[in-house]
């Protein structure tokens, strides 16, 4: 189980201190008396500094695995952290800011739209076209294929591990809120992701074997202290879409876009790893994704999104919003990550 991460600014510091139950010398908590104080957000580090991104990531983890070094209960009413009203209030504030930012970003990006009330084949064609749109960002997979050295690849894997240790989990929050036919299609995809009943084949387990073979830490959230703000934001977006019933169509659009943009890049990563002689268990993880996601993209677009849009007419715009969030968040992550690993390589030379 993970431990609380290192704070990155006033907001995440206040939250982490509160969860850890840090005490001052006089025996009172060092956390702010009131995490719902709006002034706390005003004092937070700017968006992109990682302060706000990390705070929301920590709040979301309370719904996943929690933290070993957090107290069992806390807050004004001494409740379990996951359901503390003050923490949910803070989470809600951060979520509204996050959603507003991404509504604006998606509107500004002017990506292709999805037709409303279209025939299934036309909807699928439009969805694939949307996922093929140029976001202007370089591809991490192409970088790994052609350019990365071993150290740069290791850093890419550390950053990607924030997601891969909980692969598919955020999308599963939608399951009980789906129409029955859509539920069945989500489970077709999830069955593969979770190993088809074989725990050793869980994609998160394949990932962990790959990480260990590369000499990296395979434990849950091991590298969160080094995670780029863009990586935390990309993960937060998936949880945001998954946890809110209002955002179910966006969560499905996100999942489908994620699958559509996975198989071919996985092939590029495999090529790069073969070039570098990366240990086989890690190559196997990406090879599995070439085949699995070639299936998942078809099922996700044609069946999952197709059935949902048929059951919930008028949901196309929100499905497209979720897909756009997926594409633009990956673009933001790719830009930040490639700048980060190339700078690291330059510093090594200097």
């Amino acid at each position, binding site marked *: 189980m993970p431990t609380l991460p290192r704070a990155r600014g006033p907001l995440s510091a206040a939250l982490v201190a509160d969860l850890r139950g840090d005490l001052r010398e006089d025996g009172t908590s060092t956390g702010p008396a009131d995490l719902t104080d709006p002034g706390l957000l005003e004092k937070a580090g700017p968006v992109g500094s990682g302060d706000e991104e990390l705070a929301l990531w920590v709040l979301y983890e309370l719904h996943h695995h929690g933290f070993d070094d957090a107290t069992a209960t806390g807050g004004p009413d001494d409740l379990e952290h996951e359901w503390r009203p003050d923490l949910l209030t803070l989470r809600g504030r951060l979520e509204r800011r996050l959603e507003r930012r991404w509504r604006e970003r998606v509107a500004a990006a002017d990506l292709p739209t999805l037709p409303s009330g279209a025939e299934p084949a036309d909807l699928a064609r439009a969805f694939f076209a949307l996922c093929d749109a140029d976001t202007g960002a370089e591809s991490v997979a192409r970088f790994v294929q052609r350019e990365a050295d071993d150290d740069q690849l290791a850093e890419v894997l550390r950053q990607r591990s924030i997601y891969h240790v909980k692969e598919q989990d955020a999308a599963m929050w939608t399951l009980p809120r789906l129409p029955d036919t859509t539920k069945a299609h989500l489970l077709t995809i999830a069955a593969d992701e979770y190993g088809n009943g074989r725990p050793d084949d869980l994609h998160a387990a394949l990932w962990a074997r790959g990480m260990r073979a590369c000499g990296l830490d395979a434990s849950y959230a091991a590298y969160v202290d080094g995670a780029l703000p863009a990586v935390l934001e990309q993960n937060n977006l998936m949880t945001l879409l998954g946890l809110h019933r209002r955002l179910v169509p966006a969560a499905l659009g996100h999942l489908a876009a994620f699958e559509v943009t996975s198989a*071919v890049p996985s092939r590029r990563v495999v090529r790069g790893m073969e070039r570098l002689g990366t240990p086989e268990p890690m190559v196997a993880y990406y090879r599995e994704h*070439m085949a*699995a996601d*070639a299936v998942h993209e078809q099922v996700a677009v044609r069946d999952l999104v197709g059935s949902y849009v048929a059951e919930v007419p008028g949901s196309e715009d929100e499905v497209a919003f979720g897909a756009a969030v997926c594409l633009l968040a990956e673009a933001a992550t790719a830009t930040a990550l490639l700048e980060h690993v190339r700078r690291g390589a330059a510093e090594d030379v200097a």
Partner: protein
Amino acid sequence: MSEPTQVRLCEDGPMLVRGEVVVEDEDGQRHVSTRPVTAVCRCGASSLKPWCDGSHKLLGTGGPRARRLGTV
């Protein structure tokens, strides 16, 4: 009689087969898939044949190659 095998042809994409499937290739080699749904390559460009790896997208939709393969 058992349930008929369900196969679906995707536009500009693979053939989806529901349930476990064994494909015997041209060389007589047998390939087994135990996924709930399997995507079988139809375009010939996959590096994981007989399975699809998404490479059909790199061929270009509706291009001469795709047309020759009968996907448009």
